[in-house]
């Protein structure tokens, strides 16, 4: 019982959406359910935020490792939550855009959020370098192909790529790095992307059906649980 009813809900909701797609008076359901989802997700944030606060409070009271830093998290969390939810210092008052320039919320975004986020992101440049050195090895034919393609594309991304092969005569210019670059991007790369996309579509179709038909229902939990 505990499992049958939720499953029925999944089944009915899923197939209603599928069928509604084909009916003009109902096809806005797709848009609406997407909005429903984001509304529910906001409710869920209360659970997530609660979990964050709880875990950090436990860390502090039990003096677990790095408990001092849990204070930093909590202070940052509540500070932003308060200036954001109450739109503190917003020139437009309660109707003003929440992240309007000049508000403390905007300053936090620009001077804390963006620098840390962008710097974390830019660590990728370092990690790409070390991965290139340690992981991109011609262990087998597949890895070798990947390496060669990546090298041509990277050469093509620099002015050296052009200089390196500029001597090739026009009748053979398909072997010039910029042209090879273009060929790789527009042919094999395109084909690969397409094969992956078609495959994914089939995977999603089959997976969705397994879920909707109840062949796969681990998300609903177990009876009596």
């Amino acid at each position: 019982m505990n499992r049958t009813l939720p499953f029925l809900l999944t089944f009915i909701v899923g197939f209603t959406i599928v069928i509604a797609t084909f009916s003009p008076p109902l096809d806005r359901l797709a848009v609406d359910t997407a909005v429903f989802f984001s509304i529910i997700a906001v409710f869920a944030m209360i659970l997530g935020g609660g979990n964050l606060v709880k875990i950090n409070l436990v860390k502090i009271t039990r003096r677990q490792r790095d408990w001092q830093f849990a204070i930093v998290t909590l202070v940052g969390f509540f500070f932003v939550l308060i200036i954001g939810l109450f739109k503190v210092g917003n020139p437009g008052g309660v109707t003003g855009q929440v992240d309007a320039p000049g508000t403390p919320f905007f300053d936090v975004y620009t001077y804390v959020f963006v620098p840390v986020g962008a710097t974390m992101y830019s660590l990728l440049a370092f990690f790409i370098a070390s991965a290139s050195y340690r992981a991109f090895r011609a262990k087998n034919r597949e890895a070798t192909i990947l390496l060669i393609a990546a090298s041509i594309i990277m050469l093509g991304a620099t002015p050296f790529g052009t200089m390196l092969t500029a001597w090739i005569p026009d009748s053979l210019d398909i072997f010039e790095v910029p042209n090879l670059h273009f060929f790789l991007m527009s042919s094999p790369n395109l084909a690969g992307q397409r094969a992956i996309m078609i495959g994914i579509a089939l995977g999603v179709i089959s997976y969705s059906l397994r879920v909707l038909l109840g062949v796969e229902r681990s998300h609903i939990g177990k009876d009596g649980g």
Partner: protein
Amino acid sequence: MRRSTLIGGSLVVVFFLAAWLIKGAGASGESPYYSAFLITLAAFLTLAVFSFLYADNPVYKFAEHLFVGVSAAYWMVLGFWQTLVPNLIPRISRALSEQLELEYIDELWNVLYVIPVVLGILLLLRLSRKLGWLSRYAVAFIVGTTAGLNFIAYTRSNFMAQISSTFLPLVGDWTSWAAFVDNLSLSATGPLALLMANIVVVLGVVCGLIYFFFSREHSGTFGMASRLGIWILMITFGASFGYTVMGRISLLVGRMTFLLRDWLGIIAS
């Protein structure tokens, strides 16, 4: 806390305090010390994250924990003001909509917007030991919508659209065999290059799909096609990799420019 941590921490604090004051003294504008503080804070956080490359350390931990708290709250605030309020209020209350300067939407469908609210509340019942099982209905609803929406979306845009753009003629731009042979050259814009490009696309898609076949042993001719398929996939991955390198390094350039120009003022804008 160990002594070395304390000394190191104080040094970092003193350094950035000094940096702030120097920057503030040199700045102009309405509130020079406030804007200098913000820039210095951003620079400190940038360097704190970079310090992780050397090893995990308290300065990184500070930036990490601050970022986690701040960003969690940031998304919650946006969720409230940019998702909940504009999507729900205009369908619930005319008076409240007017107060928030939102346009009231008056239609029969408003009734449906009870669903997410009820499900949202069911989800919160998870906090109760007794009624926690009710949250399953919210999850069941979400799983149903995700499965339904994606079933259609992927069939439409991934399956059908990708197939229809692969109907390429396997001949170049030519009028007769003779002309074709005459034009045969290895020029990038020549007919042979075009022909090759189309052949590779068609063959690549078909062999790529063969690689994904689950219900057949990959042996014999089928296995060879599957091999070719994985090679094509590897070229795709290589291309993605090569292009990503360029993008990621640009990001690093962006951060370096921030440090060197906006903070230190070493390089001109």
